């Protein structure tokens, strides 16, 4: 049979590609290279790694499959996407666990060498899917990648069999580069930097990458070639950034702008550890990090550093936030600046460490003993983790109360183009520091507008004072058991947080200012919700508005007024309904609906659109 097909150039707006294989197959690297190269070409991109909690799960097993999804486009890309246009499966287990995500009629590339009897059994296939017609609804491209990789490397000296087999992911990448007209140049430069001292590895990877590229070009086995033009993006200097890196950089920027030294006290926890890994690199900026003995020491060392005058932060995920609860109450009581980052994951208990969820909101709001309100804000995209980390630092320094910054595994591990924002473009950060002796200083004297207390740090002569977790006299800060004082202080701490409303922007709506339905979201679901409402808007539903909240406590001042402009309001959350609980407690007379998903996965575009249409019908 002649498998040759005329090569047609198909121009697409966007394409979604998923690379899957064993957790040791290098799928994360393959995906990252493809997205970086595409971004440099000028595409908008969004990525989503999906990997098992086990570091090296048994080879070939279903639960050991590691994947990396890339969404690239000539149009605005707001999510890594749902169903894929191209699946690259390096083994049967990868095919089995990801087949349901491939759009019918679309392309699957497989490494036929890996479809051995043993691997088929490990993937629980009763018959070989490449032979039993079960893939007839897809365009399957069968490539003996392992053999071709070996062939390409037969003349390269100094490589063992393992190293040879391991580079087959570059064969796959080379093929995909050719299919989407991407240059191999960036990846070759990457090899040269990464393996500077190992010329054999550079040579091998480059050879295999090129072999894959030329294989796709010359054998004409590829049914279609695709072109994706550069996206219309704002002019400027960009880089691809992961959410956790952006969070870390936001704090670096805030430290530089405020002229303060940054201190991080932290205990490793998935998926937050990358923030620690990033900040520990930056000792050249004077960043101090302490990998503490536990979560509690992470936050309490940060409280100590804050007391001594640093910009102090701690980073964690849900279980760690639970452990930090008591100390967070102390920071609130002694009214010191502190940012706690909660990179949310699936809960409860140990839950789903590598999967995403938004189920810590109520813990963030209320998870402490006593009346202990905090400022709570949430980032919503990998890139704006930078802005909200910066904002968290600004708010805590200006308002002298802890700030909880919520992100989640989805945006923390996802990456996207970031139009680099220099510190020079960022808003000023004030702080409440008293730099020198002040007659009659009392630690609990406050700014009359923000109610933030003035901050004297050790080393400042004449301002010696004591703070602590016991209730404080409203002026002197001395221990006070006076009943009226306790009530007064409880109200003042709450009022201080509430007044943050006067310093944050009004909530905006997208697509419609008023209408039949307002879609409400917060945190990492921004991309999914935004693209669903956008699609419906393009389909003619001009009566749907979208409000994505970044300020969760306090809520923006205009929230109530905004809700009144819509007949129905649907809260979409990756939990059983937490933000909606807060709204129900605060605003009455609205028709509040909810749409929830608790599968450790982001919302899919179709399920959102269906839900919104159903509400409107």
């Amino acid at each position: 049979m002649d498998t040759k097909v005329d090569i047609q150039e198909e121009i697409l707006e966007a394409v979604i590609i998923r690379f899957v294989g064993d957790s040791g197959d290098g799928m994360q690297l393959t995906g990252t290279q493809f997205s970086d190269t595409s971004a440099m070409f000028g595409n908008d991109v969004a990525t989503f790694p999906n990997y098992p909690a086990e570091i090296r799960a048994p080879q070939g097993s279903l639960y050991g499959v590691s994947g990396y999804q890339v969404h690239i486009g000539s149009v605005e890309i707001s999510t890594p996407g749902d169903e894929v246009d191209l699946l690259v499966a390096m083994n049967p287990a990868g095919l089995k666990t990801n087949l349901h995500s491939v759009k019918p009629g679309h392309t699957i590339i497989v490494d036929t060498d890996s479809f051995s009897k043993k691997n088929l059994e490990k993937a629980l296939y009763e018959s070989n899917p490449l032979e039993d017609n079960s893939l007839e609804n897809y365009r399957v491209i069968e490539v003996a990648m392992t053999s071709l990789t070996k062939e390409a490397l037969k003349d390269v000296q100094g490589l063992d069999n393992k190293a040879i087999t391991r580079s087959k992911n570059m064969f796959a990448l080379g093929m995909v580069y050719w299919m989407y007209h991407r240059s191999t140049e960036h990846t070759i430069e990457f090899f040269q930097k990464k393996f500077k001292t190992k010329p054999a590895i550079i040579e091998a990877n480059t050879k295999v990458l090129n072999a894959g590229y030329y294989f796709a070009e010359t054998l004409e086995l590829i049914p279609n070639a695709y072109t994706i033009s550069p996206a219309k993006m704002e002019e400027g200097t960009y880089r691809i950034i992961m959410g956790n890196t952006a969070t870390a950089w936001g704090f670096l920027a805030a430290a530089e702008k405020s002229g303060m030294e940054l201190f991080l006290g932290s205990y490793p926890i998935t998926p937050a550890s990358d923030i620690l890994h990033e900040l520990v690199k930056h000792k050249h900026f004077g960043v101090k990090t302490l990998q503490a003995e536990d979560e509690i020491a992470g936050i309490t060392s940060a409280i100590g550093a804050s007391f001594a005058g640093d910009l102090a932060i701690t980073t964690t995920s849900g279980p760690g936030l639970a452990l930090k609860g008591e100390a967070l109450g102390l920071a609130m009581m002694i009214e010191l600046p502190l940012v706690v980052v909660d990179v949310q994951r699936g809960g409860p208990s140990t839950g789903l460490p590598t999967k995403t969820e938004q189920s810590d909101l109520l813990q963030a709001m209320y998870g402490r003993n006593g009346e202990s309100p905090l400022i709570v804000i949430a980032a919503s995209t990998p890139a704006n983790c930078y802005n909200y980390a910066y904002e968290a630092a600004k708010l805590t320094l200006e308002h002298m109360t802890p700030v909880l910054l919520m992100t989640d595994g989805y945006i923390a591990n996802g990456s996207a183009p970031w139009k680099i924002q220099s510190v020079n473009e960022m808003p000023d950060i004030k702080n409440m520091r008293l730099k020198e002796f002040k007659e009659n200083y009392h630690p609990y004297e406050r700014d009359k507008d923000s109610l933030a207390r003035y901050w004297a740090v050790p080393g400042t002569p004449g301002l010696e004072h004591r703070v602590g977790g016991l209730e404080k006299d409203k002026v002197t800060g001395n221990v006070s058991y006076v009943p009226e004082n306790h009530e007064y202080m409880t109200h003042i701490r709450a009022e201080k947080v509430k007044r943050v409303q006067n310093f944050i922007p009004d909530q905006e709506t997208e697509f419609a200012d008023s209408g039949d339905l307002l879609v409400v979201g917060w945190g990492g679901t921004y991309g999914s919700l935004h693209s669903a409402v956008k699609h419906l808007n393009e389909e003619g539903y001009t009566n749907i508005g979208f409000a994505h909240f970044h300020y969760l406590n306090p809520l923006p001042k205009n929230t109530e007024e905004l809700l009144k402009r819509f007949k129905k309001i649907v809260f979409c959350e990756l939990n059983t309904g937490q933000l909606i609980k807060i709204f129900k407690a605060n605003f009455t007379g609205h028709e509040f609906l909810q749409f929830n998903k608790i599968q450790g996965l982001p919302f899919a575009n179709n399920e959102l659109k269906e839900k919104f249409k159903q509400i409107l019908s």
Partner: protein
Amino acid sequence: MEAAVKEYTYKDFASDQEVRWCPGCDDYVILRSVQKALPEIGVNKENIVFISGIGCSSRFPYYMDTYGMHGIHGRATAIASGVKLANPKLSVWVITGDGDSMAIGGNHFIHVLRRNLDLNIILFNNEIYGLTKGQFSPTSLVGQKTKSSPYGNTQPPFSAGELALGAQARFFARIGGNTPKEMTEVFIASEKYKGTALVEVLQNCPIFNDGCYAKYTDKAVREDRQLFVEHGQPMIFGKNKDKGLILKGLRLEVVTIGENGVEESDILIHDAKEQDPTLHQMLVRMEYPMVTGIIRSFQDVTFEEREDALTSQVKANSAFRKTDDLFFSGDTYEIKG
């Protein structure tokens, strides 16, 4: 330039707050001894910080006219670590008790000793929970009857010193709660020592555990039951200065000078500065005599010194001075309008 060191008396370190411990508590002795030590350490009081956890002893910072924080239960050592790392110029003192440091704060306690930041830790060991009104603590004795062990305690105690040395403490001192002069000296030495200095005070609780150290600390028996060690001096004790320690096999033995041919020159000389903690551990374990004074004072590299050296090295090798240098480095690309 650093400001000149001011002259103080102990009164300069007393805050305006009324001290609220029970009458007769050794905590008063410790407070006054600290206030007497501070004028001697050559640090201006704006550079002194007291951090405590929870418990009777942990009210201490409120009574000191320095910077201070009354933290949460067990976490004073971790809070103090943050203070010291943020500003290594500060003289940082941790106030903790036996429950605060070895029960709820046990993890932070061993790790702070392991890291060896330049901190002073004063451990008020009264072998009982005072503030919660009389439960046994991790240093209470087996059989001890308390509110939570009415038939006698069944949990064997920690020895603070053994635990500390096991966690690599480089400085450990022990002092009776009723010997303010020696206590003041030990506090001055602990501040002068660079590294984590742990001082255990055998502190009598007159309400819930009165007399728990009486057999070592009562004036009448003190000289015969306590050995106050000093670096470089023979380990001699007793009213008549006739008892001493010698090493016999793997044990320390008490001998009497002048008996069985023992001479003063046979008595072991105390070497607090020795790196090997074996002898220090043996001294810590003794019950007769109860060894007080500075048992171990081995000078090691501090955590801040290691961090500083690393930071200087990274700074010297890095081209990054401002965040812009980082943000615009590596794989950036231009989008043209």
